């Protein structure tokens, strides 16, 4: 049973990673940190050869900070689009091409299939997140060594020292894991109703964007009429945006906010609840699903 689940998980992960698309996804999601690292390395090499002054160093630190912020924003915004495509490929695509049939003719249970697929997709996403983190770490290492060699006082308190802390990284990963878990659950559920990944991606993203637009409109609409806000509790995206808000991320980075502090605990538990609900419904739907292609 556990062996089968493990084989299934490895198989799913291999299917995702064996595609050329996978490498492009990882690159696309991490364009900013990769470019930032290249820029930092270039600056480092330039400094080693020319020995530039303090002004340029702080400019570099500012650049890394700006890019870090940009990366967080971009990642939070574009990762759902990539995620929809990965989930679409793994579930809708496989249903359409008949791979799901071949899979379900082996003695694996449908619950195992759902969990193995979700786990593989999550691991893939965590690889993407960790890859960005890795490149940001390289930036910080460069900034550190520059500040040491040049004996320049760097304003590295905001990004540098704290980012390198592994417990802070673990917290960031927890936030990103929870936000992605709910998102994966949502996409897995929608993917079960489609047999082409592109169609699934479009429909699920339209729903997602509509929901998010509504969440953004609610504070203004509520001023007109309270009842306009009545659908807000059903919008799971609001927890996700609270979790991935830069204020939250910075709070965690600066250690002024911990995972149990109320500002973050609510969205964290909210996302977990939504994730559980999505997976429960997905499982019920998949159990009843007839494989006819």
């Amino acid at each position, binding site marked *: 049973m556990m*062996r*089968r689940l493990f*084989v*299934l998980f490895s*198989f799913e992960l*291999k*299917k995702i990673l*064996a*595609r050329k698309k996978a490498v492009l996804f990882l690159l696309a999601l991490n364009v900013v940190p990769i470019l930032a690292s290249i820029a930092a390395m270039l600056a480092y090499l330039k400094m080693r050869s020319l020995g530039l002054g303090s002004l340029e160093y702080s400019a570099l630190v500012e650049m890394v900070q700006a890019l870090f912020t940009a990366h967080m924003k971009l990642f939070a915004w574009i990762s759902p689009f990539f995620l929809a495509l990965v989930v679409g490929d793994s579930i809708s695509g496989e249903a359409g*091409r*008949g*791979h799901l*049939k*071949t*899979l*379900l*003719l*082996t*003695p*694996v*249970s449908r619950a195992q299939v759902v969990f193995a697929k979700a786990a593989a997709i999550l691991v893939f996403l965590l690889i993407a997140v960790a890859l960005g983190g890795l490149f940001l770490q390289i930036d910080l290492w460069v900034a550190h060594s520059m500040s040491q060699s040049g004996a320049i006082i760097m304003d590295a308190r905001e990004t540098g020292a704290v980012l390198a802390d592994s417990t802070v990284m673990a917290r960031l990963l927890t936030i990103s894991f929870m936000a992605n878990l709910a998102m994966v659950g949502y996409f897995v559920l929608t993917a079960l109703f489609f047999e082409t990944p592109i169609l699934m991606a479009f429909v699920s993203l339209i729903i997602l964007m509509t929901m998010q637009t509504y969440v953004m409109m609610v504070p203004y609409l509520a001023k007109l009429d309270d009842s306009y806000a009545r659908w807000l509790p059903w919008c799971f995206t609001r927890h996700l945006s609270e979790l991935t808000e830069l204020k939250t991320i910075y709070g965690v980075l600066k250690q002024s906010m911990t995972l149990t502090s109320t500002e973050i605990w609510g969205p964290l538990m909210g996302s977990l609840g939504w994730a559980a609900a999505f997976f429960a419904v997905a499982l019920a739907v998949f159990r*009843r699903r*007839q*494989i*006819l292609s």
Partner: protein
Amino acid sequence: MNSTIPPDAPQAPSPTPAIRVTDLSKRFGRVRAVDGMSFTIPTGSVCGFLGSNGAGKTTTLRLLLGLARPDEGEMELLGRPMPASRTEALERTGTLVEKPSFIEHFTGFENLWWFGSLTAPLTRERVGEALELVGLSDAAHKPFGIYSTGMKQRLGVAGAILHHPSLLLLDEPTNGMDPQGRAQMRDILRDIHTREKTTIFLSSHLLDEVQRLCDYVVIVDHGRTVRQGFVSELLNDGHETWELRLPAEDLSRAIEVLKALPAVLGINPVPRGLEVSLSHGVSHEINQALVGAGIRISALIPREASLEATFLALTDTEPGADKS
């Protein structure tokens, strides 16, 4: 019958049939794909599941394997209720439903390895063996996407036999294969049957193929079982058919003579003569009577009973409508 299977093998008393289906029904919207189908497949047999296109063969296989849910009816695979004991039953069953769908960008070997490992731990040797058995050793490390239809089909069969199953469920295993490929596939299946005592259940609409390979048949039409039984019994219905060749001018007189004989069950005009169906073992009387009446018979040709004739008689499919 060209079957190499000893005729007494399937008759051996077996407490649990390999497959048992009782009153199975399945609708898709307003279409009754399967409509009260029942059949029992004895363990150790090679069974042909015959029916025209759209008779409900593939749907029945999907229901049997838990891919779709029946509206009514009970099913057992290797004595286990389906779909309740799906996992246990599928561990001992090799399957190929419709066209084999493997991962296109994985090689044949990788596909067998990964899908096979989900049933039970595998060795590389076993995967190689299965690939060799179906003649795909050379293509083992090419991506499945570039395989020809016949190769895909053979990989599907290799996947089905990977774990030495007790039961093989194959949906049109020779679909899209050339005549050599078909003959080879028959040899593979016969070989597995004799060596591993595997019960084989294969759906097909290629009647001569089923007649060459199977010792048991289930014939379905419009979602119902119309006949099931051992091929030898099915073909031996106490009748025999002979073709009489005679000059055209004797034709009407011959018909008169034949109609007077109680042993004659039916007369059909055919080119250059008549086709006569008779009770078993009375052909000499017919000959005597016709010669006695002065009819110049040039030939008396036995018509071997064929599954095709039985099938066409049992199903109301028009000849020629069922092409592979």
